[in-house]
């Protein structure tokens, strides 16, 4: 008679099968989520400044420092905790987070972005936060040029992003309306 395998072996095999399915499911899930945000999310413009480039696995990018990095907290939040940032648009059309709430508590599909708290805070106080996506991947030749141009540019630099269900997908970087790679190409000429 065939001996039954111990229960823990079956559980372990189950975990392996789930993870194997995850190898296919995770990339597909990420693609679908990002496509949904890009195609049906609301578009916002955020003012940015440059920081530092390069990632050994994913190539060149420009790190963006969002000008908007503090907001009023309407809940007691901890350092490193995720939070809901409610988006507002100023008179020039640039977006910013002005209110912070506990993660997944604000009910709005396209005016809330997930952020990470970067300072110790108490309720009803201004606190520091960071946007989760601050890297814009670019061609390895263009990225350093864009980085240099950002440091020298005196006008308004902003990034366009799609927001849906807290996810923010960065689209493109602009120098006063001119797309970054176009701006750099013109400058080089």
């Amino acid at each position, binding site marked *: 008679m065939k001996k039954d395998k111990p229960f823990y072996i079956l559980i*372990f095999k189950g975990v*392996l099968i789930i*993870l*194997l399915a*995850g*190898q*296919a499911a*995770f*990339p*597909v899930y*990420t*693609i679908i989520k*990002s496509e949904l945000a*890009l195609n049906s999310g609301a578009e916002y413009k955020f003012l940015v400044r440059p920081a530092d480039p390069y*990632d*050994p*696995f*994913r*190539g*060149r*990018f420009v790190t963006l420092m969002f000008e908007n990095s503090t907001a009023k907290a309407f809940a007691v939040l901890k350092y*490193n905790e995720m939070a809901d940032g409610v988006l507002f648009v100023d008179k020039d059309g640039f977006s910013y987070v002005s209110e912070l709430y506990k993660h997944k508590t604000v009910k709005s599909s396209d005016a809330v972005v997930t952020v990470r708290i970067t300072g110790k805070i108490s309720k009803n106080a201004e606190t520091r936060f960071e946007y*989760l*996506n*601050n*890297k*814009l*991947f*670019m*061609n*390895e030749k*263009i990225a350093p040029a864009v980085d240099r141009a950002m440091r020298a540019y005196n006008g308004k630099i902003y990034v366009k992003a799609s927001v849906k269900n807290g996810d923010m*997908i*960065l689209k493109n970087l602009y120098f006063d309306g001119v797309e970054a*790679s176009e701006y750099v190409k013109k400058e080089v000429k």
Partner: protein
Amino acid sequence: MVNNKNRRHVKWLYDELPKLEADKVVTGAVSEKIRNYYGSLVDKNAVHPVLAIFYVMGSVLIGLGIILLIGYNWDNIPRLFKVITSLLPVTIGMGAGYFTYKKGMGKSWKEGVAVFWFLSIGATIALISQTYNIHGEIADFFLIWLILGFPVIYVLKSPMAYFLYMAGAVTWASIVQIDGGFATAFWLFIAAAMPFYIKLFIEDRYSPVVIRTSFITAAAFTSAVGLTLEKCVPGLWMIIYSSLFCFIYMLSARLYDDNEPAIKKPYNWFSAVGIAVLMLLLSYDWAWDSIGWNHYRHGGNFYEQAAVFDYLLTVVLPACAVYMMVDVIKSKKKMILDYGASFVIVIACYIFVALAGKVLGDTAVAAALFFINIYIVYLSAVTIKFGIENRHMMTVNSGMFLFGILVLLRFLDMDLSLLIRGVAFIIMGVVFLVSNYYISRRISADEKR
């Protein structure tokens, strides 16, 4: 086929069979029956080293090539094409993995496919994150890669995938610690891969693949301890590391046969080197400066909750080492204690400096340093003695090397003129060469006799 565990014994028996037949102890038919019972000694699944190197190198090059092409980041490619391309590596990896698993291919091929599959997961995540500008933190990237890549070890039973997984886990934990987080989850990663390794070890601990894998495991454990310590109570690392190395050292006496060469016993030499290096580090006063609970650290990057893990290791590891020490004493292999009991000296010195440091100040540290230096001299002496007694030149040289390093370090500490240092080093070098010459001559003369 012969079970790996019995391979050595069966090989001996097969070598004996022709003699037994010749002396008419057994008949040809009986010896044939014995051969049929135990099966062939040739392992069809054994990794062919040259083939395995080519397969693995090929996979690594393809995998890295894909990652570099992704890094190039073409701008003019439409998003749809990028998305399809991003799914391609993992699809090929999974396909090749499934094919290899189903067809039961040779081990060398399996290793190559396992490496490609593992790297392909990273390539796909990297490409998607690049296409959509997401997963900014490199630690998150490694975390997802490790979790999704973990099944490759078990599906293809691949030591190379195990190596990549462990290396990835160490990298992840290092990044997390550097960024000011805590990487205690690293132990979960190690625990998840342990059943695979333990099975390999039980099957045949002396095979080259298992020796390499054991070395990787020992290295991963050593890094794991260092990376996950929160260090709120300064200096606990001395107790934890010395107990860990001593535990492994004494355990290795249980795990391996005495008559196997040292090179086949990775835990033995790894822990012995670990103990020696640790003792050399502890022979510096900076190691003993401001240690103990009187210098408790909190705030900033020190997480008091995560430090519970430090305290747990401070209790568990010495307890394990004491358990093994009792075992060694019972087994009457007392020379193992020369290295194996070093954790007792370290713990005693730690408690002494932590308690008496406030009252005695630098004198307490000086006393600890004195003991540690004397102990290193003792270790060198017993190592040289053991090497000479067992006619093992490598062990003799290890002992002399340890002593040489100690002298070198102390000479660099002291404010002596270049002339004195130069003369001392020349004398040391001459002693080294002459003693090597005489000992090797004596060993070969003994062998001839």
